[in-house]
Each structure stands twice: as C-alpha cells, then as structure tokens.
C-alpha cells in the first residue's frame, strides 16, 4: 500500500530536456525556457518568478564556477510530477564542488572579485521547496530543485 503511494507520488506527467553552452548570454534563455514549460501548470506570477530566479542562480553557478574560463554543456531536465510538483535538474560536467556544505553557506563565495554575493544557494533554498546538490570533483554537479505549484481553484 505504502509502495503504491510512493509510486503514485513520482508519476511523471510531462518532461522536457534542454542542453546549451555555458555562455552567460544563455542564462536568460535557460530561465525563460523552464518558465515557459512550467507555465502549463498555470502558476502564479510569483511562483513563476521564484522558478526563474532559482534556475538563473543554478545556471550562473555552472557558468561562473563549474566551467570558469572554459565553455561546457549545461543540461536542464524539467519534469512535471503528480500533485503539481515541478522537478528541475540542472547538470554540468564541470569541475565539481569540493565542500558542498561550505558552498551552500550564505555569503560564501569563491568569486568576490566578480561581485558574486554568495547567495546563489540561499536564493534557491528560499525560492524552492527542496534543493539537492550532488557533486563529484572533476566530473560535475547536479542541482535538483523541487517546487510545488499551488493548484488553482476551478482548474480542471
């Protein structure tokens, strides 16, 4: 019975994947693409703005930290799950994060000269329900963002 509920919970209703180069000019594209896909759940402007902001932070981390001076591929997978849950995975094959806990500390940054505020993960955590980070030094990082979109009354 319990297992059935878990299986139900992770039912994938729709999915998209987009891959692009880690150029800063693609940051706007990335957050807009995700927002456009999530729009089918009829989110509020606030919810859509939260998703845009969190994705922008994650992609910026890939551009600034994962690939630094080089250009690599960033892949975003978005799944719409049952119960109006959006699961966004942002993946890079960059340098990886040595100390994830340290990286997630608010105000911690390895790029102060670029005026990075060190708030990327804090913003993701504040704007999403669940933030998970998996990283291997030398092979890349995957950030998973989960957010539940409030169901609209009267929506069929």
């Amino acid at each position, binding site marked *: 019975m319990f297992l059935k509920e878990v299986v139900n919970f992770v039912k994938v209703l729709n999915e998209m994947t987009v891959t692009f180069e880690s150029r*800063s*000019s693609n*940051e*706007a594209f990335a*957050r807009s693409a995700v927002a456009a896909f999530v729009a089918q759940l009829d989110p509020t*402007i*606030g919810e859509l*703005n939260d998703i*845009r*902001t969190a994705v*922008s*932070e994650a992609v*910026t981390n890939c*551009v*600034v930290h994962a690939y630094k001076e080089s250009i690599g591929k960033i892949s975003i997978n978005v799944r719409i799950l049952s119960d109006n849950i959006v699961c966004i995975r942002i993946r890079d094959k960059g340098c990886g994060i040595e100390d994830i806990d340290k990286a997630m500390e608010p105000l911690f940054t390895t790029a102060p000269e*670029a*005026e*990075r*505020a060190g*708030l*990327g993960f*804090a*913003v993701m955590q*504040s*704007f999403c329900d669940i933030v998970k980070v998996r990283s291997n030094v030398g092979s890349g990082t995957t950030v998973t963002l989960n957010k539940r979109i409030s169901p609209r009354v009267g929506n069929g």
Partner: protein
Amino acid sequence: MPKSVMCGNELTVYLSGDIDHHSARKIREATDALIQQNQPSVLKLNFGGVNFMDSSGIGLIMGRYRMMLLYGGSVKVVNVPENLRRIMELSGLSGLNVFERSGEFCESVK
C-alpha cells in the same frame, strides 16, 4: 548606458530590464563610469524598470555600496518592484539602511 540624472550632489541611475550575471557587468561598468564622472555623495539606484533580478543584482548593489563608502558617500535603493522584494529582503541589505521610498523631485532625466 542607463538613464541617469544628477541633482545637487545626488546621482540617480535608472536601471531597467533583466539584471543577471550576464547583464550585471555592463550595468556595473556604466554605473561606475557615471560615479567617476559626477562624483556624487549620494547614489540612488532606481529599480522601477527592472523586470527580473537574481543575486547578481545584490552583488551589484553591494559593490556600489562599498565604492560609495570609499568616497564617503552613500547608496539608496528606490522604487523596488513587488517581484524583487523577496530577493532584496533575503540579501540582508536592509541592515545597511539602503532602502528608501522614491523621491519624486528632480525628474528631468538625461
């Protein structure tokens, strides 16, 4: 170049569009050039035309705050749209006393 107006010793810079890591560099360079040129004692950053901002915008404000402090001046952040409020609150900038309601005088924009 963002729109700007110098009024007395106060420089207002009107920011617009999206502020992210990509656009922040240009905005930073333009704003710093205006600061060097006008040497204001108060820098007002007007966010009224900004549609989107991530933490790059916080870095932008912090950087200008430090720069103005160095010159013995100060920074005011005005006209923050509703959808930027949360990220502004999250930033801890309120502790630096930079938020202010928009002053509506000196509106002859360059």
